[in-house]
């Protein structure tokens, strides 16, 4: 057939569509008639039947028989048995001014932009194969039509390129331009597009008529009616199989496809859009419940006859069964019927592409681009501009982008597949929305996190088990990915995940993806708590009937925003004129007058939010309205509902309790820290005051006697000698005190210069005793020394070790019995340590002071209450020294009375580590 004729007819057809849409939109009267028409509505739902139905069903029937049917069985079941699901969804959409399936899901789960974005991404990727299917069918049918020899010769699909260009690309761009012009003429997405709906309904009529024409031609024109056709076919056992239900795995794939199509009729973005968003009256659904299944029945009447006719006609040669609808009339040289078939296929494809791309573009714009844009600085700098132009541009770009994606998938993956196989990949993607949607309208406990986990998990499994393998089979991924699994991991084979074998690919993918999806959705929902807004939305969705059967929602906004401000805000997105109109309508409907400076009441705010939601989606609208309404959104209803949810209140108060307990604990800790600081501070003060006291005492004597000697030159020689002696001993005392103070300070700060070496303990003890032997004799004390002859050397500072001995022995001298003093110094070798004890026969150490005496400046009264000589630093220094050597020091009382001071010196441990340090 002449290509220019085909092209002209095609464009005339598209022009006709445009004219219908324009005519309907521009005539208010016509619009009213059409928008109040359940038949138009039902026909528009028939957008379900795409070139998949038109060409693919025949192809499927011609190869696997009745397998083409379940795809229509599912929708029929949904419409006939469960129309209330649709009614509920429609009611919710109207109440919330939902614009798309993404909007629906994000609105249900707390108006979060993130989940809307995820749904959008899944929808766009999931629809790619479906759009590629339409492009493929248009391009293939076009090529066959213009190159077919006709006249009983078998038509072949010519090889690309024709016209030196890629026909499919041209088709894609043409459709993109058409859809962009068609679907985005004005912005308010939930305002019904009567023109669009009318055009789609018209297309449904065209494809039905065209398919019936071909069917009647095949059945009665070529053959002698049904009986003749089936009789001829039943002669061939291969063909007879086609019209009997296949056995074996056939059943599982039947069930899979039925379930899948049940989900798809609700969850495909375009079906959701046409059925729920574009619905004008709920009651139309009642008509659609039987009319739409009837349409499906009629359009499927001739599938088997055409398939059998094709098989009979082309029994000797290989012809693509997907194109029987076109090639059969061509073969029998019926140009007009061929052209009608082509136009029918074109209408089936264009209706799908137009509605799908508009629905997707709305989602991309409202749920992906706008939420990001609203946050960007670029946008914030354009506060005052009219943004309707921007919105339209975003949607048009999205449409082009979506079609290019579809084309890309076609080029990469779908050339080698049949139409139905491609379509089923898309169905499986759309089915991922089913749990979130169906669960969302029946189960209040479903949470945002559950929904996003389920969706995400299901989508990932879908990608892995269907989408990626489809790329692999076309050679874009290595074949081994399918046959051996990624990286040779058998259990990860995408068609036999975790070794699950024996199902067909679709059933396998659906099983795993739904397991992940529903499992994630259910489990995470049970584990997580919904936020307040999620609870409210859940109630609004699940109880939509109960909430809407009564009076209108008594939602109530608090805040201060004027009519003028609100009008300006909404105008930027919806268009200034349109908003003025809408506000005027609102005023007349509610019998009020609106002045610009007047503050807005609750009903007008809600009205404005719905207006905005229509243009930019409910999540975004809420953010925007929230941004201008000062103060949080408080509706009486919300408050009641939140209060109803006592569990949340309890949880909240529980959290508060926890918080206050934490605060209390923190306060206690702070108090403790503060007390400790105070203690340390007073300890420091005490120490300084003690140091001051200890220094001043010898200084007092020094100064006093210095002055006395100065002022009294005539004192006796004896007195002078006595006074000078005092000056010398007090000077010594002062020096010793200062030395000890410095030593102690250095030891405590870790800056002491220790000169460690292997010390002979016998010699050190003897040196220490030697220093005090004079004092011992002077006081007539019995001194007993008990030291083994051979002692191991210890790693220590010799002078400091002697200092310890001296301090302990001089304490013993001070505190032993004043009249019959006895002191024992003993050393015992315990192998790994030496134990050195100094004992006296004094009164002993009072039990509560056993530890305190090792503190700085603790001084015990000597026998008889007289003040002991010494700085009060001796034992503190001993402890520092012994501890440094790695030993311990403590005091105890002997059973026979008297004090015993014990310290230990490690023999080996200290030695080896010191050696290592050298």
């Amino acid at each position: 057939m002449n290509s220019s004729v085909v092209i002209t007819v095609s464009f005339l057809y598209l022009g006709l569509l445009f004219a219908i849409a324009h005519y309907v939109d521009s005539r208010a009267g016509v619009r009213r008639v059409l928008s109040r028409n359940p038949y138009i509505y039902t026909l528009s739902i028939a957008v379900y039947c795409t070139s998949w139905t038109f060409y693919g069903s025949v192809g499927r029937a011609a190869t696997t028989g009745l397998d083409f049917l379940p795809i229509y069985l599912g929708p029929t079941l949904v419409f006939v048995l469960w129309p209330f699901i649709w009614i509920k969804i429609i009611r919710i959409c109207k109440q919330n001014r939902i614009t798309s399936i993404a909007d629906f899901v994000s609105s249900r789960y707390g108006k979060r932009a993130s989940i809307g974005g995820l749904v959008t991404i899944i929808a766009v990727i999931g629809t790619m194969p479906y759009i590629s299917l339409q492009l493929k069918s248009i391009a293939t049918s076009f090529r066959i039509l213009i190159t077919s020899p006709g006249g009983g010769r078998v038509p072949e699909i010519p090889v690309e390129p024709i016209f030196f260009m890629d026909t499919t690309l041209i088709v894609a761009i043409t459709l993109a331009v058409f859809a962009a012009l068609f679907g985005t003429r004005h912005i308010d997405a939930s305002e019904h597009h009567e023109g669009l709906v009318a055009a789609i309904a018209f297309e449904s009529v065209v494809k039905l008529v065209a398919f019936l024409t071909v069917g009647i031609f095949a059945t009665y024109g070529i053959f002698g009616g049904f009986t003749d056709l089936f009789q001829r076919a039943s002669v061939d056992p291969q063909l007879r199989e086609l019209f009997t239900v296949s056995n074996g795995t056939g059943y599982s794939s039947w069930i899979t496809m039925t379930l899948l199509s049940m989900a798809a009729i609700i969850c495909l973005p375009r079906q959701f859009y046409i059925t729920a968003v574009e619905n004008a009256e709920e009651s139309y659904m009642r008509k659609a419940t039987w009319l739409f299944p009837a349409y499906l029945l009629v359009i499927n009447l001739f599938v088997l006859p055409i398939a059998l006719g094709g098989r009979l006609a082309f029994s000797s040669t290989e012809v693509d069964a997907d194109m029987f609808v076109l090639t059969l009339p061509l073969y029998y040289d019926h140009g007009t019927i061929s052209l009608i078939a082509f136009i029918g296929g074109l209408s089936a494809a264009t209706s799908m592409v137009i509605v799908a791309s508009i629905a997707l573009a709305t989602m991309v714009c409202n749920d992906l681009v706008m939420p990001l844009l609203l946050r960007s600085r670029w946008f914030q700098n354009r506060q005052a501009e009219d943004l309707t132009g921007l919105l339209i541009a975003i949607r048009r770009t999205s449409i082009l982008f979506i079609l290019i994606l579809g084309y890309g998938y076609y080029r990469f993956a779908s050339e080698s597949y049949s139409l139905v196989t491609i379509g089923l990949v898309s169905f499986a993607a759309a089915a991922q929305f089913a749990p979130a949607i169906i669960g969302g309208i029946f189960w209040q406990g479903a949470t945002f996190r559950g929904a996003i986990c389920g969706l995400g998990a299901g989508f990932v499994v879908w990608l892995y088990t269907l989408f990626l393998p489809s790329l692999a089979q076309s050679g874009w991924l290595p074949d081994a990915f399918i046959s051996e699994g990624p990286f040779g991991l058998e259990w990860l084979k995408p068609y036999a995940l975790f070794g699950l074998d024996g199902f067909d690919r679709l059933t396998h993918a659906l099983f795993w993806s739904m397991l992940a999806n529903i499992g994630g959705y259910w489990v995470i929902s049970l584990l997580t708590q919904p936020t307040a807004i999620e609870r409210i939305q859940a109630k609004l969705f699940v109880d939509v009937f109960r909430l809407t059967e009564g009076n209108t929602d008594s939602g109530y906004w608090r805040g201060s925003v004027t009519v003028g401000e609100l009008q300006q805000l909404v105008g930027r997105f919806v268009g200034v004129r349109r908003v003025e109109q809408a506000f005027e309508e609102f005023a007349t409907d509610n019998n009020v007058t609106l002045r610009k400076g007047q503050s807005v009441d609750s009903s007008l705010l809600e009205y404005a939010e719905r207006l905005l939601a229509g243009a930019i989606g409910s999540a975004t609208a809420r953010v925007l309205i929230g941004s201008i309404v000062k103060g949080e959104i408080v509706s009486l209803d919300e408050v009641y509902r939140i209060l109803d949810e006592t569990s949340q209140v309890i949880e909240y108060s529980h959290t508060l309790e926890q918080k206050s307990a934490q605060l209390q604990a923190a306060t206690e800790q702070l108090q403790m820290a503060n007390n400790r600081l105070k203690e340390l501070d007073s300890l420091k003060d005490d120490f300084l005051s003690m140091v001051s006291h200890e220094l001043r005492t010898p200084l007092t004597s020094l100064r006093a006697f210095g002055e006395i000697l100065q002022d009294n030159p005539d004192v006796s020689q004896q007195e002078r000698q006595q006074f000078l002696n005092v000056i010398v001993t007090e000077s010594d005392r002062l020096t010793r005190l200062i030395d000890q103070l410095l030593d102690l300070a250095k030891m405590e700060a870790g800056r002491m210069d220790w000169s460690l070496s292997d010390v002979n303990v016998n010699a050190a003890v003897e040196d220490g005793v030697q220093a005090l032997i004079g004092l011992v004799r002077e006081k007539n004390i019995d001194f007993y020394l008990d030291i083994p002859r051979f002692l191991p050397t210890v790693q220590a500072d010799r002078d400091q070790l002697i200092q310890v001995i001296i301090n302990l022995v001089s304490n013993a001298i001070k505190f032993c019995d004043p009249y019959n003093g006895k002191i024992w110094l003993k050393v015992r070798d315990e192998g790994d340590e030496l134990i050195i004890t100094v004992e006296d026969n004094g009164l002993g150490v009072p039990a509560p002071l056993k530890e305190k005496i090792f503190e700085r400046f603790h001084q015990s009264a000597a026998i008889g209450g007289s003040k002991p000589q010494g700085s009060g630093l001796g034992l503190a220094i001993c402890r520092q020294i012994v501890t440094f050597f790695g030993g311990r020091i403590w005091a105890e009382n002997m059973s026979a009375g008297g004090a015993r001071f014990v310290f230990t010196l490690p023999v080996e441990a200290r030695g080896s580590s010191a050696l290592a340090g050298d």
Partner: protein
Amino acid sequence: MSYTALVVEDEPNIVLSLQFIMRQLGFTVRVASDGEQALKAIDEFVPDIVLLDIMLPKRDGFQVCEIIRNNPSCQRLKIIMLSAKSREADRDKAIALGADEFMTKPFSTRTLGDLVKKLTGLPEKAGG
């Protein structure tokens, strides 16, 4: 009749110096080395002046001062408190408890002498 002084101090060398100074001024000097001894001494004989250390065994100087001041027979008695603690708080406490003067160690023997003379009304060149 000569004046009597009680020196209450536990540091033997300081006692020695105070004894010498007071004798030079013409006092008969008695010595107590802790708080209890001091109170016992005062019970026996009320001196004209007490040189009282604060940090003492058994009873500290503050307690001793307070008891003396509550004793009706000791109204004329003068008290000079001597302390190696230099805190203002101690000075204030001493004065509040009835001490006449407060001196910080180390003190000047000359200032001490002047103070003693001033408090007891001793003539410039008393004794020998």
